[in-house]
């Protein structure tokens, strides 16, 4: 009886306009969750998760901030993927977008693209200095990795970092 009442409540909430909710059933426990973006990471032809490899090389401060930003973005509506947390790029960099965060005066710019309704795939982690990417060809690298995923030379994994 109690279970039936809970399910009824969730059914009503799941119809709320403008917000995606998913319902999880786990060991008779029902929890209501905000629909979540899936973050994926580029895996090279050699089978190396390049985003994870970048992450491991970073300081704990960068790792903590990167985890925080991924978690925040993963729970935002697409319309809220915007400055100052995120920016869709223009020109030769389309359809890439960049996460934007600073740690100890270094501007980090992990690049990726929207690979589905609620899927964002990170393909390359760059920096920005004096309004330019470091390395300067960061967009080309990120786009090449995207192409590798699409033509089967490379692939992508669901991000190894747990966001929930």
């Amino acid at each position, binding site marked *: 009886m109690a279970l039936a009442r809970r399910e009824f409540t969730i059914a009503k909430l799941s119809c709320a306009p403008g917000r995606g909710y998913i319902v999880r059933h786990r060991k008779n426990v029902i929890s209501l969750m*905000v629909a*979540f973006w899936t973050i994926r990471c580029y895996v090279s032809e050699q089978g190396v998760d390049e985003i994870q490899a970048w992450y491991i090389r970073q300081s704990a401060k960068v*790792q903590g901030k990167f*985890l925080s*930003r991924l978690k*925040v973005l993963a*729970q935002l509506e697409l319309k809220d993927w915007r400055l100052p947390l995120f920016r869709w790029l223009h020109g030769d960099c389309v359809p890439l977008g960049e996460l934007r965060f600073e740690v100890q005066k270094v501007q980090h710019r992990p690049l990726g693209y929207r690979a589905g309704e609620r899927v964002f795939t990170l393909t390359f982690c760059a920096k920005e200095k004096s309004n330019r990417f470091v390395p300067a060809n960061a967009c080309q690298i990120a786009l090449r990795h995207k192409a590798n995923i699409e033509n089967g030379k490379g692939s992508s994994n669901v991000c190894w970092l747990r966001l*929930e």
Partner: protein
Amino acid sequence: MSAGFAWSKEFVGQLGNEELRNAYTADHVRTRIALQIRALREQRDWSQAELGERAGKPQNVISRLEDPDYGAVTLKTLLGIAAAFNLPLLVDMPEWEEWFDRMSDLSSRALHRQGFDLDRLAAIADRRAAATSDAAAAFSRMFIGQQVIHDLYSSVANYNSALIGQGSREQEKVAAMLSTSTVPPLGAALAAAQNAAVAAARAA
């Protein structure tokens, strides 16, 4: 039931490193403040300049406050911004589990708030007072019921003691008293209390 993200032991396990955890926590707090200021401003259809006017600050200060990477937010500034929105400010150092729960939904909708509204708050206070009163009355009935039943049992015990060596007329008197009693049984009192508590919770 939280409307935000759950947090798993795997997620918490990633925060084992103190330096990483501190960076994560600081960024999450700053990001939440920045996103909430923007969400509240947009909820009211205010520009950054308009919020600045109300808070007595230039537009570029509001722009910085809406940037999670800006690390020099002061309590005084936050109090001023909260006042401009007609909202209170809560600064707390909670238990970790409470912090994870509170940080579990940073969507703009979850960050919207209503400014001070005396009528709305008075209505909430009335509803809560009524709910508390209902619950108190239900518990009071329950305790009175328990007391009466206790008294009845005592009376019966006394009668039983007194009946030893007396005639059946006294036994008939006890049976008559119990059958005509208007005191609700304990189960009914408990059910009434439970119903009142459920109704009070719904009303709240």
